[in-house]
């Protein structure tokens, strides 16, 4: 069977518009929407909960249901990121940086419109990328060895540090704190326990989701409680209307370069095994900041719409990218994909280079369903945004307890583990302190995700290269990434020296 067999592709789309398929697609989309909006509960949780229900379903229907969930969660997760500074899913954390300030200015509708449109368009670009990659997935996965992962992790940390401008030193401190937190637990390579203090819970290290919920959601709630009032502060209720949302929808099209770049970063990062949407979103954000005109950089972190478009397009485009290694080698490109992989196996499909020949019909159904659910998600988010946006005007005395309750339930429901709730509270307080003393928080999530990847890849590169790092210079793909790192630093320095005015930074 040819990978791009038009008959198979057409059949998949026809299948998608059958009544029962549409039912599962909408059902999946609605489930994903709810899980995406609730902080801490993302697509991964929704997929994991749905696995048992999908078992007795026909494989095509099961895939459509799952694709519905995967397509929508990152879109709806942006809603709470913008309105409450509480990322609905971990990758939406980058969207809080400019989305939330927009809310505070009473422009929540604009931000949500832009996020939904950027998500929908980004998702479609990601799917187009996936389609283009279908015939050459194998070559791509084989190109990336630990050497490249090491350099990609360095690239991620370099871009995030540079994006914080004059708060560079404070940003490094935050980054180092993230690296220390990431190093807690049993280390797979060395077989040593680090900073566990004999506590069993710490053996596996801090879990990403409870830490993120605390660092971004709880800290914000502490702050809001201290300030009193509502998220939007003195913003005018009238300012949020459907026109503002529609205006927001046009923003990604007006700024198509940002959209395309974000989507390209998303698909590229998504396609790398183990590097998830959080990295994609933050990388897209930081690259948007570093490549902005020096005069515009000041506005990032204070409500620049580009700071919403870049991460949201990357975040959704990464789904298409992440499917590449998942299908081609059964190596999940993200946490969602790890769960999705088990769905495929449960239904008798064997991820690997041969899935393209053995289950091509299912693959195309998956692609069609993912593309359709992204569009449905955007439409729902856009049409409901103005009413959801009213949440930002709810008084903190009402809002804080509700969000805290969701945050705690989300944190607990991951593994039914009370220590996860403790982790969330502790990191909530830490995040609040960072906010209070003007430390840019952005380096933290990236350090926590990239730290372990960088360390493991470093050890692996050393072993592969017989104890030296010289193989970094032997591989063309490594050299390309190294040049990218140098280019980022050079580009930033150029802007840095050409600026005479003072620099503010996103926090």
């Amino acid at each position, binding site marked *: 069977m040819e990978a791009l067999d038009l008959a198979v592709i057409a059949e998949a789309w026809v299948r998608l518009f059958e009544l029962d398929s549409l039912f599962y697609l909408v059902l999946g989309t609605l489930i994903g929407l709810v899980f995406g909006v609730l902080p801490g509960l993302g697509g991964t949780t929704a997929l994991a909960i749905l*696995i048992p229900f999908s078992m007795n379903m026909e494989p095509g229907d099961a895939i459509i249901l799952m694709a519905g969930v995967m397509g929508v969660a990152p879109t709806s997760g942006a809603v709470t990121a913008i309105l409450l500074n509480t990322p609905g899913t971990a990758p939406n954390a980058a969207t809080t940086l400019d989305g939330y300030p927009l809310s505070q200015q009473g422009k929540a509708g604009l931000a949500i419109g832009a996020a939904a449109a950027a998500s929908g368009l980004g998702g479609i670009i990601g799917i187009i990328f996936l389609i283009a990659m279908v015939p050459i997935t194998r070559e791509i*996965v084989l190109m990336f*060895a630990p050497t490249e992962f090491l350099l990609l992790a360095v690239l991620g940390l370099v871009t995030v540090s540079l994006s914080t401008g004059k708060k560079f030193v404070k940003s490094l401190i935050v980054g180092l704190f993230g690296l220390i937190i990431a190093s807690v637990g049993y280390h*797979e390579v060395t077989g040593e326990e680090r900073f566990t203090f004999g506590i069993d819970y710490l053996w596996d290290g801090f879990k990403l989701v409870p830490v993120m919920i605390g660092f971004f959601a709880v800290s914000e709630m502490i702050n809001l409680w201290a300030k009193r009032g509502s998220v939007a502060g003195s913003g005018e209720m009238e300012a949020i209307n459907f026109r503002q949302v529609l205006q927001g929808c046009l923003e990604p099209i007006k700024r198509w370069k940002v959209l395309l770049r974000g989507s390209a970063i998303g698909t590229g990062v998504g396609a790398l095994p183990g590097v998830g949407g959080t990295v994609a979103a933050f990388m897209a954000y930081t690259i948007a900041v570093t490549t902005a005109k020096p005069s515009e950089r000041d506005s990032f972190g204070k409500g620049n719409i580009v700071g919403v478009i870049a991460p949201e397009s990357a975040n959704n485009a990464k789904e298409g990218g992440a499917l590449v290694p998942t299908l081609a080698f059964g190596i999940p490109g993200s946490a969602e994909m790890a769960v999705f992989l088990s769905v495929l196996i449960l239904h*008798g499909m064997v991820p690997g280079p041969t899935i393209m020949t053995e289950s091509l019909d299912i693959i195309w159904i998956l692609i069609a369903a993912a593309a359709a659910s992204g569009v449905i998600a955007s439409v729902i988010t856009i049409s409901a945004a103005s009413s959801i946006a009213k949440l930002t005007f709810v008084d903190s005395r009402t809002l804080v307890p509700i969000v805290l309750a969701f945050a705690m339930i989300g944190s607990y429901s991951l593994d039914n583990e009370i220590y996860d709730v403790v982790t969330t509270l502790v990191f909530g307080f830490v995040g609040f302190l960072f906010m209070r003393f003007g430390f840019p928080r952005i380096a933290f999530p990236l350090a926590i995700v990239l730290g372990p990847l960088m360390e493991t890849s470093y*050890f692996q590169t050393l072993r*592969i290269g017989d104890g030296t790092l010289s193989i970094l210079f032997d591989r063309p793909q490594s050299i390309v990434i190294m040049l990218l790192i140098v280019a980022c630093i050079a580009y930033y320095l150029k802007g840095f020296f050409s600026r005479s005015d003072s620099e503010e930074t996103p926090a």
Partner: protein
Amino acid sequence: MRFLTALVALGLIASAPAQAAFPEKDITIVIPYGPGGGFDTLTRKLSPYIEEYFREKSGKSFNKIKVVPKNMPGASGKKAAVYTAKQKPNGYTVQIFNIPGHGLPYIKGENPGYDIEGYSWLNRVGGDSYVVVVSKEGPYKKLDDLVNKSGDLKIPEQGPGSTSNMANRITWSTLGKGGEYIYGYKSSRDYTTAVLRGDGDVTMLASGSAKRYNKGGDYNILAHFADEVDPAFPGAVNGKDIGHPELHSLGLLRIIAGPPGMSKEVMDEWNNALSYAVNHPDIQAWSAKTGNPVKAYDTTAETKKALMDTLNYFKKFRDVF
């Protein structure tokens, strides 16, 4: 006095319920790893059939009893094992175990907070043997080519203490060959791909995984440590061929067990349910299609023997871990 006697008699009746049929409420099967892996997939695939057995046995078409798989990842499976050991031995909580993985502390003489010998061992639901995998494009065409390589073999792996790492260390020390381990790969799929990419020379896998990963014909399977070499691995040698039949003891077992002290009645009921599920034509068809080895055999005593044989075999090599 008569009143007292009546009271005592009443108490006796109340405390000795008429042989209540097991099960009467929902059952939890603890999976010691996260969703998506081999243990998770197998447990979730078997659960509905275990449920079906209990439903049919009860004779009620609307039996509400559910068999619920519960992921409890943490500390390489240790967290779940400690949890299961602390549950009531009433059959409502059992766990799928990874042997030798869960036996590593026993093998090394450490105390992990549970006694591997103490659990109520039920039927084995899956078992597998190990194969030696190299890239088809690479320079190694026979097992001898690996043994004769100058210097140590480079072996991509998950990490120290993983079951495949134990298999690798035992195999290469038996064959008198040094290994340099490249740790940190996330899964068996990941480190097998690393061999294909050229990160290292060779690795070892469970035969079921090898079949799945090699559907595209990217790899050569040079050895299969089982009494009969699987026809899916043409050209592979086994331990007997190379004068080391003891390598056939390198096994991987997937066994269901409950907390220590389960009653014989409940254990028998469980074993019947597991045999029913494992032998179900749907499961066997799925097993054949995906290469997930699912085998029903062993009474409780045989399972325990297979378990201890495996652990004691690994124990002989504790110095190489």
